[in-house]
């Protein structure tokens, strides 16, 4: 083999002659290695935590679920009476309450969020756009418990007066509160979805003489549909998982609601209301973990689905 022109030594097979000089393990190499390991562990921590959440909740709940709980009876039972003897764990009122309140919240949030996203993304320009975005961001930052106080002290009398009903803490109240809480996040995600539509599409439509509204309605919205669906899904996830605001605004009545003026209880609020008084490791305590597991599985599915919608969309664009 010919000697290398750089060092005069014969080159080893397949490696440039200076490879060895670069590859020696000095202090820089070791600090690089240590840093790499540490940040890798940081990255792993996200996986670790989500796995740990699932494991902890599942192990607390599963044993009870397997041996002492009839799942069918739990999902369809209309009575949730964990403190009487013998305790009855029928989660139907909680599931129905969650569904009612989330439904009302979405009826309010979807038009508001999409309208705001379309205006901010497609019509507003310059300073006005910046200010509206800041407003949305501020709305999203209001803490859950403050929303609860609004439901309790402001919405309650308004609902009693406007609709002439006795109970002001009901499905409607909690739905409005949750709708307003979920709308800013949905608006942000929906606006991202609109932004992801390439400008060349808009320009092509405008070149054909379409007005801005026609561009939005015929070109941008159909193209952004997966992203908008993801926004709805994440909004549902948010409304569904909200705890303190719902506990304060829904009236927390453990019965299946029959209209939007009935008080109701949700899965999240029930855990929050009862975890403090349930004996650690007891049946009631484990039952609450079963509800937590249910919440975890449903939100996990919603998040995966939304993520898949957004990513699938990006790949095709």
């Amino acid at each position, binding site marked *: 083999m010919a000697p290398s022109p750089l060092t005069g030594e014969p080159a080893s097979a397949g490696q440039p002659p200076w490879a060895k000089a670069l590859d020696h393990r000095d202090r820089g190499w070791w*600090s*690089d290695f240590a*840093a*790499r390991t*540490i*940040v*890798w*562990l*940081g*990255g792993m*921590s*996200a996986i670790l*935590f*989500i796995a*740990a*959440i699932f494991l*902890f*909740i599942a192990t*607390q709940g599963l044993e009870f679920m397997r041996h002492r709980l009839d799942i069918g009876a739990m999902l369809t039972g209309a009575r949730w009476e964990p403190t009487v003897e013998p305790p009855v764990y029928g989660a139907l009122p909680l599931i129905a309450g969650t569904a009612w309140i989330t439904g009302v919240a979405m009826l309010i949030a979807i038009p*508001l*969020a999409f*309208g*705001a996203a*379309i*205006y*901010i993304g497609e*019509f507003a320009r310059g300073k006005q756009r910046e200010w509206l975005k800041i*407003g*949305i*961001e*501020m709305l999203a930052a*209001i*803490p*859950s*418990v*403050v929303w*609860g*106080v*609004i439901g*309790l*002290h402001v919405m309650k009398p308004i609902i009693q007066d406007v609709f002439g009903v006795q109970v002001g803490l009901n499905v409607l109240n909690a739905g409005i509160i949750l709708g*307003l809480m979920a709308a800013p996040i949905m608006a942000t995600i929906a606006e991202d979805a609109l932004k992801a539509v390439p400008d060349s599409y808009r320009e092509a439509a405008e070149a054909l003489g379409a007005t801005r*509204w*026609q561009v939005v*309605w015929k070109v941008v919205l159909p193209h952004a549909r997966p992203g908008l669906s993801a926004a709805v899904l994440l909004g549902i996830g948010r409304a569904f*998982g*909200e*705890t303190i605001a719902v506990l*304060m605004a829904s009236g927390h009545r453990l019965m299946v609601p029959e209209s939007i003026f009935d008080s109701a209880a949700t899965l*999240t609020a029930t855990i*929050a209301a009862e975890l403090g008084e349930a004996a*650690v490791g007891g049946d009631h305590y484990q039952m609450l*973990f079963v509800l*937590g597991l249910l*919440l*975890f599985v449903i*939100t*996990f599915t919603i*998040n*995966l689905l939304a993520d898949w919608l957004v990513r699938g969309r990006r790949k095709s664009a």
Partner: protein
Amino acid sequence: MTSTSPFAATAHEGTKLAVQQVARFGFLAITLLLLIPAIGILAVLVIEGAPGFSLEFFLDKPRDNGAAGGIATALVGTVWLTACALALALPLGVAAAIYLSEYARDNWLTRTINVAIVNLAGVPSIVHALFGVGAFVHFLHFGKSILAASCTLAVMTLPVVIVATRESMQAVPKAFREACWNMGATRWQTIWRIVLPNSGSGILTGLILVVCRAVGETAPIMFTGAVFLRQQFPSGIFDKTMALSLHLFTVSTQVTNVPRHVPFAVALTLILVVLSMNALAIWFRMRLRGRKKW
């Protein structure tokens, strides 16, 4: 030639433009409809809560289960919880962001981490509370303490730090890194000297958002370390403590005969902290965006 300019709008085009105007104002109205509650809430809180504001309100400890006195212990407790959560979440989150932005390849592991982050952010806060009770309070034997509550908050806010930091690190141009590598710097030297200093705004935004979340959350701390009433200031991380958010929940639902202005005053305090932090984050972002020229 009276009116037939070749560029005049035809009747059809006129209708199109009218529809466009209607759509524009319709959507503006919807946007404002969303923002009016925000302003309304702020107005109500200020009108109802401001009379409760006084120096004593911030410096006194609560009396009568919170119906009288001030919020001093709750304020101090919230500072403890937030500081501890920050100390845990920030290093971990920044490390994860460095890995994802600078080292990770596009493979199944990275995708799994991303899915985990999305789900960690999406899991309901009460599920985080259950996890905190199971893992930190009982399994690790922290008991009901500031430590357990802060750990729960840290797990919950981790995605916020990761996402904010990762985004600002990815905004640092590739050419900066290449220039550094060409000088013979290792990957870590490049990250430490070039990438991190240039993404300080993102880390700071993450920090502020964590503070906002940690201050406002109630469900994750009410079973892991925060208590309804406690007259002493916490003296260490194994103490229980009061917290502003839980105190607001207590005075509005658990205690009877609370004067009407008390919950509003506590809520106003809470929202002023959160909104001013948020405004700070927004101002920061704008200033840096205005200054950056790449």
